[in-house]
């Protein structure tokens, strides 16, 4: 893990420019919101996530987050079928703020086209460089 301007970036994850992270666990991709995303959004008060079994395509909207001021659509970083939804985070959205890379994960999908789509995301070292350019 490294800290860039007080934002945590974790080794082994892939990152999108809309502040979504992906962790590949065998044939499953876990998806969540980055530390940068959650800190800038501040307290998340509501989460909407897709149903199990739904297919989402990379770049589609997979769900949304609501804060006191804004609603944010979560852009899917990969294509795949939803295998698991974090019910804890629906009951307690502040988990995303408390533990964005851990208990605050959002969904797990069975990716469809990983080898084509993963290179469109930033790996750890690219993400570090990108985060350094952000204010």
């Amino acid at each position: 893990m490294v800290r860039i301007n007080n934002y945590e970036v974790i080794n082994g994850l892939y990152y999108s420019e809309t502040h979504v992270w992906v962790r590949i666990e065998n044939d499953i991709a876990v998806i969540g919101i980055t530390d940068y995303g959650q800190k800038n959004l501040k307290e998340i008060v509501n989460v909407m996530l897709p149903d199990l079994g739904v297919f989402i395509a990379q770049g589609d909207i997979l769900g949304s987050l609501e804060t006191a001021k804004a609603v944010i659509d979560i852009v899917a970083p990969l294509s795949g079928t939803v295998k698991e939804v974090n019910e804890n985070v629906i009951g307690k959205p502040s988990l995303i703020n408390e533990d964005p890379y851990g208990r605050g994960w959002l969904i797990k999908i069975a990716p469809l086209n990983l080898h084509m789509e993963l290179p469109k995301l930033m790996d750890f070292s690219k993400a570090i460089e990108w985060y350094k350019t952000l204010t």
Partner: protein
Amino acid sequence: MSKNIVILGCGAAGLSAALSARKTDRNINIIVIDQEEYPAYSRCGLPFVIGGEIRDFNSLLTFSPSMYKMMRIDLRLRSKVIDIDSNSKTVVYIDHQNRKETLQYDSLILATGASPIIPSISGVNKRGVYVLRTINDCKAIVEALPSSRNAVIIGAGLIGLETADALYRRGLNVTVIEILPSIIRASLDEDMAEIVKSSIERKGVKILVNRHVDEITGSNRVDGIISNGEKFKADIVVLATGMKANTELANRIGIQTGITGAIKVNSRMETTIKDIYAAGDCVESNHMITGQSTLSQLGTTAVRQGRIAGINAAGGYAIFPGVLNSMVSRIFDLEVGTTGLNMIQAEKYGFKVLTGSVSWRTRAEYYPETKSIRVKLLFERGSLRIIGGQIIGGEFVAPHINSLALAIQAKMTVFDIVNLDTCYSPPLANTWSPIVLAAESALSKIRIT
């Protein structure tokens, strides 16, 4: 195809409009254009950067630029809008690479803010003369600090005095020149203003009222000013003589402006041209007590109006109820807050006023950190409803002002206020709330006469 909302200005009002439009319609395209290089930031925080309390300009940004992508707001910075065509529903702007671009809108929101008024004093263009509106204005002042010893602020309104406070914290000798007979005259009555003035003067800051500035002197760079024939040294001069609504684009296409010179809007924040809304410092607002137009030009008003404009522009329905111009400011050691009408305004609008005042303590008298606080309340004779309040104190002024705003909006009378059930604990509050005591002082005047 989804609709386009185009928002001119990414300040407090523009951003609030964008966020509310997104909440109202999830599929709409939202494009926000601003000529500055930073997206929405707290202008209200600028004096505290000058004063050194806040180190980093970036911490004033509401959202960092990269968050706009996540929020699906198409942000176009360093882009100046030069024309609007309300027939073809297009906006023309010059982008950051100096290219001319045209954008189609379904709804347009003008959130163009206001700009500092530059008084016509000889020498205002000299180097070392500043205004305070943008991060870049603020940076210029901060850069000048190390080589400066004396500062003159022209204008003793809130921005002038907050800037005086900031420069004083940086160790400069500060003089404030005000043309009117008292300071913060848009908000405070003379008796209250006098308390603030003498507290600032005790710090060694000069405040000169009833004074005009004849000339800003210096060959190329400012070296001083002349006021009523008297010379004052200055390495920094800050013009804080008020803000003027940015209405050029509105005027150009025939959108009506009102008696204050700002854009006229209805309660849905619609201008006089269909599908064009406006919000924030560029509009005039309806005063909740007088029902007349007023220039509010506060950050709180901007976000509330932006929200209404955004909801309506996105196809929702929302109404702006008007303003009381509630405000608070920390001026040297004092917190100063007001809401509703002051004496000058009340008289201007024909109210016969009953006042009540009290000087009190913020916490139990024996509690070590207790500070003084003075409350002045204005009631309308006859109806006895509360129409205004002014508070000066060492602490807790903001929450008291908020309760007064609540009382005014709830149309409470002096009788309701003397019977308020307030809270108390020695380290946190006094047994009697100063608001209740000020109301009692007003009531006692009508009981004996």
